[in-house]
């Protein structure tokens, strides 16, 4: 039951390339407060709870901004619950994308190895709730990272990568190879491509090693960079046309490492005086690349290095702490967020930029449609404002959505203005657009109240349209309900609508299951009416697999609890749950759980694995599937010694007869042993008769028949014994006849032997056989007459007819 469902379409992304940024406002907060008042609430300091009272939205009364260009906004997702004592800069941080968990490693740098000062690994939800923690007892860690399925990768200095789940439970480990082990890890990066989660290592020998998929480990050692004496100032993993490559900067030079070669590259439009590279950033979809040089110059272009998109000259020259892309899929705007200790700058295709002062250490987490900013006290989201939202909330906007929102508000106030606004939209025939705009914008809102007012407006507008398809509205209401539920700080998954759609509801359910939030996951399935097999059943099965790991409960209790909850929900596989129980070392529990499995076919493999072969055999027989019985029987044959194997079969007649069939075809000698074991002399006799026919020499045949004879006697089958005796006698006689007359007699029937003798005129010998084998008169007469007639020996016929009274009369019809 793997949960390794990745994120679909990681590489799909926006196409456009032009980007303009609004006028530099220069001052923290201007962007939000003065332009788009309602967005400012988040980062002005109100938490997600309790909500600050919101002023009514009245953009229309505020004068429009000077520049109509694109805007970014920043709002708070959560005030962090984690009450960190340390500064973030003293911790190693890794936050998973798509609102994923945060891993913190504290005390990593301290060298003394006293137990009290051991590094501490902690995992938090995005809202800062502690999920798990553990003292780090393994080797020196260089890097933490998350896989696409939210497992934590802990990359050690020796190249060993340890994998833990969300709850700090060890899953497995792997090594990045001997080369890495020898030269140690200098730096490491975790990256995601369509192949899965990859790890790239920079070793102490300034060489790169990487794997593109940790679940299908193939280590690649990248070519050497000629003359590289010191570590590169910065580097990044790129993925282009399904090939993973490394881009690194040394001083003023850029090198591209692919599988086979190392090449020097120059970004187009790069000023020669730009200086040495200090930092680089690849966008979430691997399409864009940003380079920061020591002259404060920022180059932004395509990651293929074929085209420059824009550039920016910043006044700061010190190396940035972090630089990440911030953009929205399908948007034409590009922006890069750069941070230093106390400063955050959003730059794009403009001579000016937006700057924020950072009160605390912050950590950037790039997302599909923006950037999350983590600090000790808060967790914020910075993104480009989506078009629909801009249209509606832009001050003095006359967009249909904006008018509709206003109309609805007036309607609630019972003001006739509602009609005026509505008429204005309808006159332009834009009501459907207005409704769609409100629905779309609702999706981008984090505040339920704003969502509601937009949806109310949409619903209001719908009333005035004939046959507006309801799906988009209903769908959005459902999606928002799900999103609001998971964004709650108790759950702490701050997915945006865009991320949610990319992630898909199935992956989201997997993630809830990973966090063991089974009830919520089930409620979502029920709410969205997902099919049982896709939804509830899967989650219950995961729950059950978790349940079997609870060692404090007795086997009976666990088995009962699981059966109570699961019953016979379609799609539940008890055998899979049992397999999990067995993996946890709970064989008895596994057997109990298997009892609930209605499909015997499913019970058998696990029972065999648990070495409950006899139980497996009876389950296979119960199923009626003879092939399955064969599979178990052959398994037993290899597993048990011959005696025990035979004994086991003895108690299972169905299996025994199937095995006999197998032996008949494959191992005739074993067949004999089987009959011997049951003292089945009749079958042993038949066996020997059968084998006698494969003997190449007459002595062999007679020998085998002699064996058959003995067995038939033991079986008290007088008739068969006598017949076999006769057969031996006949064979011996036939050999003499063959020698005497030099004609083939062997293997003829008695009838044909006598008949041939008469045909050849050996009447005496025929007579002898007739007496010796006590051929009934009647048959002998028939035989002799027809043979004589065939021979045309009428003289002999007459003699014969006079010798005795015919038992068959004299009307011989046959001729």
């Amino acid at each position, binding site marked *: 039951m793997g949960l390794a469902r990745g994120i679909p379409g990681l590489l799909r992304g926006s196409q456009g390339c032009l980007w303009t940024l609004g006028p530099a406002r220069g001052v923290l907060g201007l962007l939000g407060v003065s332009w788009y008042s309602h967005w400012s609430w988040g980062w002005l300091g109100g938490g997600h709870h309790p909500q600050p009272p919101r002023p009514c939205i009245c953009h229309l009364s505020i004068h429009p901004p000077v520049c109509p260009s694109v805007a970014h906004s920043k709002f708070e997702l959560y005030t962090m619950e984690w009450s960190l004592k340390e500064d973030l800069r003293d911790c190693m941080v890794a936050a998973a994308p798509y609102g994923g968990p945060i891993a913190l490693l504290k005390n990593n740098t301290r060298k003394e190895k006293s137990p009290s000062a051991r590094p501490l690994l902690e995992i938090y939800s995005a809202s800062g709730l502690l999920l798990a923690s553990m003292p780090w007892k393994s080797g020196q860690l260089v890097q933490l990272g998350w896989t696409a399925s939210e497992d934590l990768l802990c990359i050690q200095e020796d190249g060993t990568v340890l994998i833990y789940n969300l709850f700090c439970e060890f899953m497995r480990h792997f090594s990045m190879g001997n080369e890495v082990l020898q030269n140690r890890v200098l730096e490491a990066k975790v990256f995601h491509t369509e192949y899965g989660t990859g790890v790239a290592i920079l070793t102490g020998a300034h060489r790169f090693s990487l794997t593109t998929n940790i679940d299908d480990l193939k280590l690649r050692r990248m070519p050497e960079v000629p003359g590289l004496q010191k570590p590169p100032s910065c580097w990044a993993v790129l993925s282009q046309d399904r090939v993973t490559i490394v881009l690194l900067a040394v001083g003023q030079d850029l090198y591209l490492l692919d599988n086979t070669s190392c090449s020097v590259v120059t970004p187009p439009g790069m000023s020669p005086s730009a200086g040495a590279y200090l930092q680089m950033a690849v966008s979430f979809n691997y399409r864009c690349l940003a380079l920061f040089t020591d002259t404060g110059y920022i180059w932004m272009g395509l990651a293929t290095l074929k085209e420059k998109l824009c550039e920016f000259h910043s006044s700061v020259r010190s190396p940035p702490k972090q630089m990440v892309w911030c953009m929205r899929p399908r948007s034409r705007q590009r922006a890069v967020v750069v941070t230093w200790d106390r400063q955050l700058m959003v730059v794009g295709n403009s001579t000016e930029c937006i700057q924020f002062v950072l009160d605390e250490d912050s950590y950037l987490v790039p997302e599909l449609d923006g950037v999350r900013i983590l600090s000790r006290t808060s967790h914020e989201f910075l993104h480009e404002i989506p078009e629909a939202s801009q249209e509606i909330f832009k001050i003095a906007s006359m967009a249909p959505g904006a008018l509709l929102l206003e109309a609805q508000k007036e309607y609630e106030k019972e003001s006739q203005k509602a009609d005026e606004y509505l008429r204005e939209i309808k006159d332009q025939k834009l009501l459907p657009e207005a409704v769609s705009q409100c629905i779309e914008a609702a999706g981008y809102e984090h505040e339920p109240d704003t969502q509601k007012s937009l949806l109310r407006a949409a619903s209001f507008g719908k009333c005035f349209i004939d046959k507006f398809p309801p799906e988009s509205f209903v769908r959005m209401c459902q999606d928002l309900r799900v999103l609001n539920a998971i964004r709650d700080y108790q759950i702490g998954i701050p997915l945006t609508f865009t991320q949610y759609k990319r992630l898909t509801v199935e992956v989201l359910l997997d993630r809830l299951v990973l966090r063991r939030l089974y009830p919520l996951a089930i409620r979502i399935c029920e709410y969205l009416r997902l099919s049982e097999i896709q939804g509830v059943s899967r989650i219950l099965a995961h729950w059950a697999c978790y349940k079997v790991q609870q060692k404090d409960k007795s086997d009976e209790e666990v088995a009962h609890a699981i059966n109570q909850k699961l019953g016979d929900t379609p*799609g539940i596989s008890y055998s899979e749950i049992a397999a999990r129980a067995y993996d946890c070392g709970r064989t008895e529990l596994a057997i109990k759980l298997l009892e609930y499995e209605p499909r*015997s076919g499913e019970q058998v493999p696990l029972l065999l694995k648990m070495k409950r072969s006899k139980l497996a055999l009876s389950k296979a027989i119960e*199923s009626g599937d*003879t092939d399955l019985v064969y599979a178990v029987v052959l398994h037993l044959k290899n597993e048990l010694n011959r005696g025990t194997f035979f004994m086991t079969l003895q108690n299972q007649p169905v299996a025994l007869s199937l095995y006999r069939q197998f032996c008949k075809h494959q191992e005739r000698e074993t067949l004999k042993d089987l009959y011997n074991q049951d003292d089945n002399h009749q079958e042993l006799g038949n066996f020997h008769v059968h084998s006698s026919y494969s003997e190449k020499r007459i002595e062999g045949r007679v020998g085998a028949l002699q064996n058959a004879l003995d067995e038939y006697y033991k079986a008290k089958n007088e008739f068969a014994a006598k*017949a*076999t005796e006769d057969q031996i006698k006949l064979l011996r006689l036939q050999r003499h006849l063959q020698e005497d007359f030099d004609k083939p007699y062997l293997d003829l029937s008695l009838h044909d032997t006598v008949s041939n003798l008469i045909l050849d005129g050996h009447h005496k010998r025929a007579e002898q056989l007739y007496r010796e084998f006590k051929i*009934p008169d009647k048959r002998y007469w028939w035989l002799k007459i027809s043979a004589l007639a065939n021979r045309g020996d009428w003289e002999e016929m007459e003699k014969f007819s006079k010798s005795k009274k015919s038992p068959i009369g004299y009307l011989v019809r046959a001729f």
Partner: protein
Amino acid sequence: MAAHLSSGRVNLTALREAGRRELREFLDKCAGSKEHEVEKMFTLKPGRLPQADVKNIIFFVRPKLELMDIITDNVLREDRGRSPQRDFHILFVPRRSLLCEQWLKEQGVLGSFIHREQYSLDLIPFDGDLLSMESESAFKECYLESDQTSLYHAAKGLMTLQALYGTIPQIFGKGECARHVANMMIRMKREFPGSQNSIFPVFDTLLLLDRNVDLLTPLATQLTYEGLIDEIYGIQNTYVKLPPEKFAPKKQGEGGKDLPTEPKKLQLNSAEELYAEIRDKNFNAVGSVLSKKAKIISAAFEERHHAKTVGEIKQFVSQLPHMQAARSSLANHTSIAELIKDITTSEDFFDNLTVEQEFMSGIDTDKVNNYIEDCIAQKHPLIKILRLVCLQSVCNSGLKQKVLDHYKREILQTYGYEHVLTLNNLEKAGLLKPQTSGRNNYPTIRKTLRLWMDDVNEQNPNDISYVYSGYAPLSVRLAQLLARPGWRSIEEVLKMLPGPHFEERQQLPTGLQKKRQHGENRVTLVFFLGGVTYAEIAALRFLSQMEDGGTEYVIATTKLINGTSWIKSLMEKLEPAPF
């Protein structure tokens, strides 16, 4: 092409379509495209595969080890150097087998197969009311070797049938195998809870019958038209091969110069109107139908002289293809009837039939029969002898030890001692046995079930006994009595027959419960485990057509058999190694 499959009460085209779809999907997978032109079909045999210039070779096989050996041989002898290389695929019919795959693995050829899949073709539609698994050895496996593989396939086949035609609410059965199949069906249904079948049930009742409940019927010579064709020439998968002489094109002037030497191959099913009409008649009633048809057809051709106007001629011409088909069909069946008549009017056929009928009506079943002795002395075909001896044994609830031993000794001396194993098999199957209880139950069974009818009407039958000119097949009588008045009336006799009899009910959701229209017939599926004869099928069809019969029958079986093919399947083939 398969219109005759939809002609019956139950439209079996759906089953055929499901089968076709599954096969097409597999072929798509192998060929990697939607186009799959089957170049040629070969019979599986050891040695090198034929030189066909193809990319894909697909083995269609039953999951049996002896066949795996042949395939292994084929694959190992394939020339690896040939180009283009041929890809191997294996399609197990009807089920994939771990045992076989394990075996192929041990031979080191498992990896040679790119696709290994199963084609769950359990029940093959043979006609509008007839399904067969075509499992030749089913009877032998079940009753001699206690290998119930074919019963598992039968149960699977019934599940497929229910998936297409709805859950069958009532299951009746008689015999050990029937019980086993019913148990498996119930179990399989339980294995998929929640998968509630929402199809309105087409079948009302399923009747599972073990062949060993009625060992008698297949031993007797079938006397329906189709039954006789099968007895004499053997019908293979609805095709029969006939001696060509009678089918020579009758053209004047060529004077039989070049008589065809290849056997004439004809397909026999209800798609042919005339055949559908006469197949189930007693052979004695076929002649009159054929001559009546001949008159009608020549009259129809005479019509052309009366056609005067252009319109009339046009109408005549438009009917011409149909008339010509009818004429050639009539010609074929007249020839077949002549061939059969030559045999049925022979003295030996008559003697044989007389003895059979004596046995079935209970005359002199307890002593050595003269005719059988004479036949042995004249070395008539062994199978004929075995059929007669077994018939006598069955009609006497076993033979006295002395009589039995005499027959056996005669057979061994005349036909060879190697047949001792065949005789042993027949004894194991219960066809030949010493009378142990000392009591002969057959007369009671015969009287209660009215198996022997003296006043049989072959031309216009009023009872199923017409199919054997006097003997009413026991199996069909059981089906008939089940429908009316029910088995409760024959409890005593049922107890005398081997195996348990039982009834199971499968719950239907309330919405699917049938509200029968007045006068609407019930549909019963009769499944013969171990084989069924054409005469039995004819008898069931007769019951279906009976006015106020109230029940229509669809027939399923493991294999279509007759006495000869059945006995043959039980014989041990021992070929001495040449010295």
